[in-house]
């Protein structure tokens, strides 16, 4: 067991995957010589050479298109989109090609690609470099979306994504890149679609993913001081998401809050709330409350952005509402 940082765990996962499988290659802007804008690919060009670590021009559609094509021909590309905001340019390749190939070829082909991209605010990067757009991708049948909340999961989920025979979007959180955490000597093998109980509790369930998991744990700590035991579920994967785990938890706690950094309206939380209001109806002893960003572009300014991003206080307020 050694302490590592989130970004180093990503780097380690890429390094190990490239070591274990020669078909794995990387493509993205500034990932080679520069080692990646956030240093996720540091040293990999030196280790594996320019044939497996491609520096691409500023052309997200082309990067994604190359990855889809290479994957269709048996390679395992890992593309990096420097900011999730620019996934807009990758959408045709992802939505109309990568997501559809398996079905359109009658199961005789697949697109075993990974697209890594960071979302989230907290860096005062403004409205075009802070967005959380995972709900768009989770809405498309054929795409998988994982969102690791800590260094160990960043490693294991990226390895699972690379091993997966279908296209997986790995959404990292910029604000978590410097996060420290324990890395097991033998990393856990995570099955995409399985959630993790980050903190057990009996009075209310908070479902979160990515950076929101830490906020939920902080909120649970506040409530614990008042004798309210909050269970925190780290979804790990939002598509597919672990419906059974959430339902099982709700059946014990009877109160549900769903948290994400993304804009609340039409988000992942809406899907979870709707499903639980349906299959979990008789378990509910309070309204299902969502916590997300307001329906507005992410602001540049530090104080405004702090007000915009969800935090533990807002999760505590949501818990008090459902428990009232």
């Amino acid at each position: 067991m050694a302490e590592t940082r989130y970004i180093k765990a990503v780097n380690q996962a890429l390094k190990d995957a490239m070591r274990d499988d020669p078909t794995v290659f990387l493509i993205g802007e500034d990932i080679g010589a520069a080692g990646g804008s956030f240093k996720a690919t540091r040293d990999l060009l030196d280790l594996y050479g320019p044939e497996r670590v491609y520096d691409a021009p500023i052309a997200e559609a082309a990067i994604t298109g190359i990855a889809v094509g290479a994957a269709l021909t048996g390679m395992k590309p890992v593309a990096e989109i420097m900011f999730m905001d620019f996934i807009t340019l990758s959408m045709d390749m992802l939505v109309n090609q990568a997501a559809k190939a398996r079905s359109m070829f009658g199961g005789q082909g697949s697109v075993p690609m990974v697209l890594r991209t960071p979302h989230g605010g907290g860096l005062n990067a403004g409205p075009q470099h802070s967005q959380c757009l995972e709900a768009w991708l989770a809405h498309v049948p054929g795409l998988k979306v994982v969102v690791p909340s800590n260094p160990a999961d960043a490693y294991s989920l990226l390895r699972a994504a690379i091993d997966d025979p279908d296209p997986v979007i790995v959404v990292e959180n910029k604000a978590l890149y410097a996060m420290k955490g324990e890395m097991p000597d033998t990393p856990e093998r995570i099955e995409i679609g399985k959630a993790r109980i980050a903190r057990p509790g009996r009075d209310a369930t908070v479902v979160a993913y990515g950076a929101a998991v830490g906020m939920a744990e902080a909120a649970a700590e506040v409530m614990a001081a008042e004798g309210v035991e909050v269970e925190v579920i780290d979804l790990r994967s939002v598509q597919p998401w672990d419906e059974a785990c959430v339902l099982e938890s709700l059946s014990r706690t009877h109160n549900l809050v769903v948290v994400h950094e993304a804009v609340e309206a039409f988000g992942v939380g809406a899907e979870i709330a709707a499903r639980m209001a349906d299959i979990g109806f008789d378990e509910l002893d309070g309204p299902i409350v969502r916590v997300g960003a307001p329906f507005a572009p992410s602001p540049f300014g530090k104080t405004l952005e702090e007000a915009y991003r969800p935090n533990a206080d807002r999760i505590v307020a949501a818990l008090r509402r459902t428990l009232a």
Partner: protein
Amino acid sequence: MSDLVMPKFGLTMTEGLLTEWHVAPGAAFRAGDMLFTVETEKVANEIEAEADGTLAEILVQAGDTVPVGTPVARLAGGVAAPPPMAAAPAETASGKDTLDSPAARKLMAEHGLAREAVDATGRDGRVMKEDVLRLIATPLARRLAEAGGVDLSRVEGSGPRGRIKARDVEAAAQAVPAPPPAPSPALPEVTEIVPDATRRATAARVSAAKRDIPHFYLTHEADMVALARLRAELNAEGHGQKISVTHMLIRALGLALEEMPQMNRIWAGDRILAFGRADIGMVAETPDGLRIPVVRDAGGTSLDAVAAQAGALAERARTGRLTPADVGDGVISISNVGMFGVSSLTPIINPPNAMILGVGAERSLFRPDADGAPALRRELTLTLACDHRIIDGADAARFLSAVVALLETPLRLLRPARKPA
């Protein structure tokens, strides 16, 4: 035949003053015609006919104040205008429907519910508001209630807007099991009486007064020897209204208020109302319960005029013929229970008054004189209840002392008020 009743405007209305009839007995009217005008504390309301009809008989004359729900007229052929209150006298020919609570009828109409589809739980099969209201309970609470055989309609919800939560059902389920104890044979016989509208109105008013007004009380004895002598002399002249102790008390309060205008004020929630005239209420028993007719300008007029006014008011109160102009306003009322031999009374302020004076019976007793020898005196115990929101203790004490000083030097009751310094 159906009845037209005194309608209820707003939650706090308990009685209404019927100020004017717009239709004569025997006259026909059409839907939309003005039938009568009702004045409440706040507004005058015109009552419209809901359907065509004929006014058969007027039961409540213009100028009378009656409790909400009291029939004010009989109609021939028409439909009564405003719906009666739930507990209004139920003489209507149209039967069951009008017995349902008005809130329940409104809800049924709003939601298009057939009366037959609602389980009535009220007395005599009345549909009550709770019978129509949707029960608010969480899904889990409903499931637990069903599993545990708990009747949700009997469970009080602790959640937002009274929502019933699982914890409420669990608490109710725990409360249920105890079987009712065997009735004790020695239980005294108890009869349940439904209070009439007047009693309920009084109950509501005094409850609100005692709850909302921070009362404090001061007691002072007044020596009545000089006052009794003056009263005997005045009455021996034997012309005009006989002067009673109450009249002299009213006059004393009037003078004291003139001389201490800072006491002639009431608390009106968000502001203070200062009066330029000393009006004194006197609590009177009437056929309709307690009423408080008011003697106007007791400070600025003569003792004879006070006595004349008070005598006329008492007569009208006794015969139940008080007019709206006879009541209302003033900062203080006087409640005299001396005639029952009671030594003192600690009364409840009658809103919007700021004070009330409780008066006990005159008693003969010995007090030590200047030399310590017993001296026979006649004393009256005065208890002043004050609203602490507007009156502080020292002011109240000065006021009560001033009243006592006036009573003990009663010639001052015959003089005009001294102008305040």
